[in-house]
């Protein structure tokens, strides 16, 4: 077992999907154990692959383990399908398989009694399979297929409770919005293929390094690739679908819209970063710019959002923006480290929120509060997640965030660095608000508080495990910790693009970020303590600002306006064209022509033998004449 068998990792959940879909009805417990067993097996397999990788990773010239098969072949044109394992892949595999396992276990409790319980586990398995394929794909075509696969599963799961209109709308919105980015991704992939003649990622790298692409061509191509990442990872301006996606079941939000699928965009950019480096600097500046915009708008929108899950969704956007900024600052290490720890604390936050919703059946912050005494376990774990997100020492988020800040300081100008520091403060502010408004002080809806309590073990155990990881997973940055676990060193010495980066403790950044984070928490506490009087007064004082934030910068309104006016007008023209020209004239017209011709021609079939004999004779005569002429 090793990297050669890496394909089994996605194959197992895919098999679970097939089994549950086909025979799930007849299995005990509707087959949830099949799904959990499959993902658990994948998680175990991951360790074999990891061990295999660690054996060879130190060898000079190692670029990754690969196993591929012929997929399509016409003449000289061949597409291979294969799986590729390297350090970036390993990090993603760890995150996806582990978080998926935790979420699946949690779902057993959360989804109990749902009428489509079995279908839920089937689609979750399919999603995991697609996501793992995306991560392992060694060529862009397979990656694109898996990319669409996760998008499709996301659609199914956001709209899982499709009886609810908002859920159906949100699913549609997510699908269409990400699709805009996906078209860009496809164009980018095809552009890369057109010049290089291959979809294989490493071959494309070799081709690009040899100067095969023109500088402008490559820049345009990677920007199209980035468009896919913008859609999937909810970067501005395609971020609008992610908050709405919270209509899906909460474990889905935890798995797909926090820990795995939304980081696919980050993964894509990280994987293709060598191309971005070769392209014009504009490409990475665009990555940085959009990432930074996303960080700032999401943090400020998070201040005004009232739905507990939406606030966490904004924090996810915030984190994704941070990762993009890290990539824009040429640092795969920082981005992947943040991705790694983010998966744990964000899944933790979502699952904690799920427990709150499960217990109170409320998710508006105005109807929550004071749950700390009723749900101590949830409160403690949620607090760990919140602090990790804010980046308080020594929790996981601290190390990752400081890495990003470090690379921003080194790789970007002072303005970007300053805005990043500002975002640390705002993030801290709105995360504090979220925690205080949910768990502390008086409940604003005592009825629902009364029957609230910590959930069953199937739900709390994943919370505890994730809380522990959210607390300690940041320590992987230290060489000693990494070496103790058998890695060549700390995270930076394992996952890197060009050369290993040993972790350094930058006191100035540590102090700055801690001060800002703690300051945000204190300000937040002052603002939202008790009845949140200062916050309400601030909101009234700056009413226009509050309205802008509450209405999410009116971005959705602008989109709606554009859709109503431009898209629907255009589509009505297209629909008229389709109905009248294509359908009535083209389709029906050609059918009518065939009918008319058939009607006219049928009279040649007289049933009279002499006519037929004459026709045969004419044929013979014509052939004979032709033969005579050809011979002469």
């Amino acid at each position, binding site marked *: 077992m090793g990297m050669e068998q890496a394909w089994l990792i996605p194959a197992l959940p895919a098999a679970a999907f097939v089994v549950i879909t086909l025979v799930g009805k007849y299995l005990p417990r509707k087959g949830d154990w099949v799904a959990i067993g499959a993902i658990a097996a994948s998680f175990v397999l991951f360790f074999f692959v990891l061990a295999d990788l660690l054996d060879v990773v130190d060898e000079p010239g190692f670029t990754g383990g690969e196993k591929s098969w012929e997929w399509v072949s016409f003449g000289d044109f061949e597409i291979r399908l294969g799986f590729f394992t390297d350090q970036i892949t390993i990090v993603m595999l760890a995150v996806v398989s582990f978080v998926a396992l935790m979420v699946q276990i949690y779902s057993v409790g959360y989804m109990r009694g749902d009428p489509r319980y079995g279908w839920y586990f089937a689609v979750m398995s399919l999603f995991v399979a697609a996501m793992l394929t995306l991560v392992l794909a060694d060529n862009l075509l397979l990656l694109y297929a898996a990319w669409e696969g996760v998008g499709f599963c996301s659609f199914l799961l956001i709209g899982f409770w499709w009886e609810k209109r908002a859920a159906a709308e949100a699913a549609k919105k997510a699908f269409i919005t990400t699709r805009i980015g996906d078209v860009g991704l496809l164009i980018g992939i095809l552009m890369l293929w057109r010049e290089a003649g291959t979809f294989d990622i490493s071959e494309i790298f070799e081709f690009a390094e040899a100067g095969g692409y023109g500088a402008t061509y490559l820049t345009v191509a990677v920007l199209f690739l980035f468009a896919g990442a913008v859609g999937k990872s909810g970067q501005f301006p395609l971020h609008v679908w992610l908050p709405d996606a919270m209509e899906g079941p909460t474990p889905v939000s935890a798995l797909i819209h926090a820990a795995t699928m939304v980081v696919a965009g980050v993964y894509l950019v990280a994987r293709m970063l060598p191309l971005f480096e070769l392209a014009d600097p504009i490409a990475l500046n665009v990555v940085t710019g959009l990432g930074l915009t996303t960080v700032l708008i999401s943090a400020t929108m998070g201040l005004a959002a009232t739905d507990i899950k939406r606030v966490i969704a904004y924090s996810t956007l915030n984190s994704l923006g941070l990762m993009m900024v890290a990539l824009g600052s040429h640092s795969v290490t920082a981005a992947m480290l943040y991705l790694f720890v983010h998966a744990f604390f964000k899944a933790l936050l979502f699952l904690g929120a799920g427990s709150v919703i499960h217990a109170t059946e409320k998710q508006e912050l105005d109807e929550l509060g004071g749950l700390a005494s009723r749900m101590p376990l949830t409160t403690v774990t949620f607090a760990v997640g919140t602090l990790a997100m804010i980046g308080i020492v020594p929790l996981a988020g601290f190390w990752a965030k400081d890495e990003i800040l470090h690379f921003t300081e080194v790789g970007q100008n002072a303005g970007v660095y300053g805005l990043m520091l500002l975002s640390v403060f705002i993030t801290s502010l709105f995360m504090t608000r979220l925690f205080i408004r949910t768990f502390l002080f008086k409940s604003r809806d005592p009825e629902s508080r009364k029957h609230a309590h910590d959930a069953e073990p199937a739900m709390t155990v994943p919370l505890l495990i994730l809380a522990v990881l959210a607390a300690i997973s940041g320590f992987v940055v230290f060489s000693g910790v990494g070496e103790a676990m058998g890695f060549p060193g700390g995270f930076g010495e394992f996952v890197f693009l060009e050369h290993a980066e040993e972790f350094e403790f930058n006191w100035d950044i540590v102090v700055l970020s801690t001060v800002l984070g703690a300051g945000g928490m204190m300000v937040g506490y002052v603002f939202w303590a008790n009845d949140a009087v200062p916050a309400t007064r601030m909101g009234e004082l700056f009413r226009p600002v509050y309205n802008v934030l509450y209405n999410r910068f009116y971005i959705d309104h602008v989109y709606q306006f554009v859709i109503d006016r431009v898209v629907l007008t255009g589509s009505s023209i297209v629909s008229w064209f389709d109905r009248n020209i294509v359908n009535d004239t083209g389709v029906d017209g050609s059918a009518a022509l065939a009918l008319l011709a058939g009607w006219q021609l049928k009279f040649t079939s007289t049933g009279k033998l*002499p*006519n037929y004999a*004459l026709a045969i*004779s*004419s044929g*013979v*005569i014509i052939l*004979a*004449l032709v033969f*005579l002429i050809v011979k002469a």
Partner: protein
Amino acid sequence: MSPEEGIFYVVAGITVIGALGVVLARNVVHSALFLILSLLAVAGVFVLLAAEFLAIVQVLVYGGAVTILVLFAMMLTRVRDMPRALNGPQWPLAAVAAGMIGGISIVAVLDTEWPGETDEATVVSIEEIGNLLFTNWAIPFEIASLVLIVALLGAIILARGEEGE
């Protein structure tokens, strides 16, 4: 013109006249009689080609059996009683088509250099044909007899009609 050629033209003329009679006569029975004439003339052509056996068979089978069969059929179907046109409406087209076929093949024949022409036709004895039929051509010969049997049975079944008719 050698005597042989003279005889050929006479025989060929009779053949063509008989054939024209078959297709042009206004009376069906006359057509049948013209057919006999033509078939007998063809037997003469076979004689000119030194194929006596074939000529004999021609007279026996065609001149005898086939024409008699046709006449019987005429009697049974009483075609004579039907005073309708014997030619279909497409007869001018038929004439054109036939003319073209005939023209094309005559042109083709005259256009071709035929190899290996002999001065003297080899007379093939009946004995040789018999030998040949039962040695080299034994299998086609047997198949031909099978075809005859099947045709015979088929004709009986068809002509007898269904039960109770």
